[in-house]
């Protein structure tokens, strides 16, 4: 891949050979990042690639295990975000961490208020200062109003202005556009260009490829805790970018036949689910897909493309603003997950820890929680039948636990996932939505779960599978839909499902569904 061009100038920021582990799980392995003065550097990678850890190490939130960081040639040793800010590096987080109830002025001057001779706040001077500062960014708002009254974009500008007024030499923006609409994104980009003109360096984290090409000069790609590519935006095509992110060009680290999916029996039945022109909030604008009985349908897309939001809307966990959902031939509009479950849909969330397991409860209880009303007679749970069902599933799908009474939080990720799958299977669903079913699961258990999913589909279950692992999508799916920026851009069937084709659809906005 492209190498750094060291000749131009000493970089403003240089992070080299950074190691960081949490427990014994390495998050960064010799990662590096260099940013020059007045440069906008894109930092991209999949979930878990190490971007956030890299940022946290830089802004003093986490401590690195090894490696060197220099800023302006001098060693950098911030141990807290406040210290980093004083040293000239500010971070604008995805969630704006200002105080919405207080005025714009107060937010800008928080922690370094201007005082009068008598030790009281000099409101006039602060308001004038705030106005002057915002004027540099062409923002004209009433600085006496509470920050929360303004749009997210303005709030973000205020956060950036605050950061810059701390004499920031480097501003890190972590997915700043995720809650902005198109016009607001335009305003943000203008701000970034102004920062650039002031020779301020910017690290820009985003999953939206178009944005990177619009505003960034260079890109650093991370994968599995390593820096795998550094290049100018112009020298890297979108397809190359996606391929590097997913690690598909490095054949040597890949095992042949990366997943345990086998060809399906192809006994595909009638249509179970049909989604047309779905719109959910800002993330999903126009999603259409369908799932048939006995079929695994892959839902592909980059992070932030709206895959999870689409799945949650189908399941009734979030409301949708437009579009139609038909299940088993009937128009449906599930008001709550309970209705979707009643109709025969199950949903395994990608956030197993917070939206899946109840950590303090046993395997038995986690497995049968949703089934309890059906297991109760006169309100009292029939513990005999409960135990019978639990033991059957533990055996059938091979859940490794010391006993059904073991707390689920003590199980490995793979076994937790099996319990969650069993939770749905014991309710005899017709359609199962799986959001990242093998994330955070070790290789052996991953293969078991993939085989299980295939078997369930062969037995007639319809499966909608979201996955960020391209080989899982390509090898596991009978059909694939690709979401890009909330729009369905492509559908592939059978032989047409190839990695280059799917990645191409993830990277480029095609006009129509293929």
């Amino acid at each position, binding site marked *: 891949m492209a190498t750094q061009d060291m000749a131009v100038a000493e970089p403003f920021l240089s992070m080299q050979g950074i190691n960081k582990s949490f427990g014994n799980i390495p998050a960064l392995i010799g990662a590096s990042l260099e940013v020059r003065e007045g440069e906008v550097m894109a930092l991209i990678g999949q979930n878990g690639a190490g971007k956030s850890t890299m940022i946290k190490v830089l802004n003093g939130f986490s401590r690195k295990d090894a490696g060197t960081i220099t800023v302006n040639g001098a060693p950098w040793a911030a141990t807290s975000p406040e210290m980093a800010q004083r040293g000239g590096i500010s971070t604008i987080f995805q969630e704006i961490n200002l105080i919405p109830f207080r005025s714009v002025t107060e937010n800008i001057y928080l922690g370094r208020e201007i005082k009068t001779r008598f030790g009281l706040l000099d409101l006039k001077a602060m308001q004038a200062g705030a106005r002057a500062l915002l004027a540099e960014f062409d923002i004209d708002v009433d600085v006496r109003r509470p920050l929360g009254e303004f749009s997210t974009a303005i709030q973000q500008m205020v956060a950036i202005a605050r950061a810059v007024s701390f004499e920031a030499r480097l501003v890190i923006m972590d997915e700043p556009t995720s809650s902005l609409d198109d016009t607001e994104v335009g305003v943000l980009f203008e701000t970034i260009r102004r920062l650039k003109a002031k020779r301020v360096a910017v690290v820009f984290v985003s999953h939206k490829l178009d944005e990177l090409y619009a505003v960034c000069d260079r890109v650093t790609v991370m994968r599995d805790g390593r820096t795998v590519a550094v290049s100018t935006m112009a020298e890297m095509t979108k397809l190359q970018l996606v391929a590097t992110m997913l690690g598909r060009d490095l054949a040597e680290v890949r095992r042949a036949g990366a997943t345990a999916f086998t060809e399906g029996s192809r006994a595909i039945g009638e249509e179970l689910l049909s989604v047309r022109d779905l719109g959910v909030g800002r993330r999903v604008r126009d999603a259409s897909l369908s799932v048939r009985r006995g079929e695994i349908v892959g839902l592909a897309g980059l992070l932030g493309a709206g895959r999870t939001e689409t799945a949650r809307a189908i399941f009734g966990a979030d409301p949708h603003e437009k579009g139609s959902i038909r299940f088993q031939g009937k128009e449906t509009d599930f008001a709550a*997950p309970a209705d979707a479950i009643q109709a025969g849909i199950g949903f395994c969330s990608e956030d197993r820890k917070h939206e899946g397991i*109840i*950590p*303090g*409860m046993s395997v038995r209880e986690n497995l049968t929680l949703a089934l*309890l*009303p059906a297991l109760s007679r006169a*309100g*009292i749970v029939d513990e005999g039948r409960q135990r019978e069902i639990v033991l059957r599933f533990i055996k059938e799908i091979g859940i490794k636990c010391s006993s059904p009474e073991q707390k689920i939080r003590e199980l490995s990720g793979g076994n937790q996932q099996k319990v969650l799958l069993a939770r749905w299977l014991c309710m005899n669903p017709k359609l199962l939505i799986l959001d990242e079913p093998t994330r955070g699961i070790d290789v052996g258990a991953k293969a078991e779960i993939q085989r299980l999913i295939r078997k369930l589909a062969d037995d007639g279950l319809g499966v909608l599978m979201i996955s960020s692992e391209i080989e899982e999508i390509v090898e596991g799916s009978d059909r694939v839909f690709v979401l890009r920026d909330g729009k369905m851009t492509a559908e592939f069937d059978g032989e047409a499902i190839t990695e280059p084709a799917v990645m191409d659809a993830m990277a480029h906005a095609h006009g129509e569904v293929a």
Partner: protein
Amino acid sequence: MPRLHASAGFGALLALLLIIGFGAWRYDGFISEYNILTVLRYNSMFALVGLGMCFVIMTGGIDLSVGSVAALSSVVAAYLSPYGLIPGLLGGLAAGVAAGTINGFIISKMKILPFIATLATMLAASGVALLLSNQQSVPASYDTNFMALGQGDFALYAPDWVNGEDAGFFGAVIRIFLGFPIPAWIALFAYLLGSLILNRTAFGRHVLAVGGGEEASRLMGLPTDRTIFLVYVMSGLLAGMAGVILAAQFGAGQPIEGIGWELFAIASVVVGGTLLTGGKGSVGATLVGTLLLGILFTVLNFENGMGWISLSAYWQSVLRGGFLFVVVILQSRLTRSTAAA
């Protein structure tokens, strides 16, 4: 059937046994029939309120209104007591359920934070109690058997021989059993039922699931709103029962009683090892927690009676607060070490 989970209520149970042992060793008459029955009679009200609080806290909520709801119920029950035991009882319970329903509706349907919602009900219920009673205690009727709910027992039904000289151990057991105060029977029954509901019904499991992960529960289709609604109704019902007992025990509806009951109930629940964040808890351990704090009070009274020191009620509060600190810190150390293991 109240299961004492080793980790949850163990520290509290140990402290309870130590305190009882200490009291028995130091004071004459501590382990007397009279003292035991007095402790049980008085603390049954707190036990009932604590049980409701326990369910609320297990869902991750809080119910600050229990004290003033009990006061309101005592006033309503006292007014209705001339019509008999049943009207008095049902009236008091109805007042509690009404308050609980309002709490449950506002919290589960209108999504107002439990702290705020029940704070409002606490103020409102207290106001209604004072309005109804004209700021005076309301005498309950002695003409009906209403007072039995607070003061009665079944001693009358004891066969003569158990009161005789040669009744022996067996006779003494029967005597204590029948002399067991009616409010204590009510509390005991409520705890057995509460334990059954928590451990053996779908609703009980849903309570813990909602507290352990509300979004996870919603995504698996559990009736989260209904569960939350019902725990507040239940808490209101139990506070109402406590209010009825209050009126019957003191012979009057008490509009200004109940201040601080909610804090006492929260303390009992927490001492019992139930997590304030929800998702983990035990009915039996809450009973232990109530008894622990109640008996501590009795010990301080006995100590005053010894004549060595004279502690005012305020000092007793200070001591109880300090004691609560110790138990809660011990409890958190215990859970942390088991979590780490």
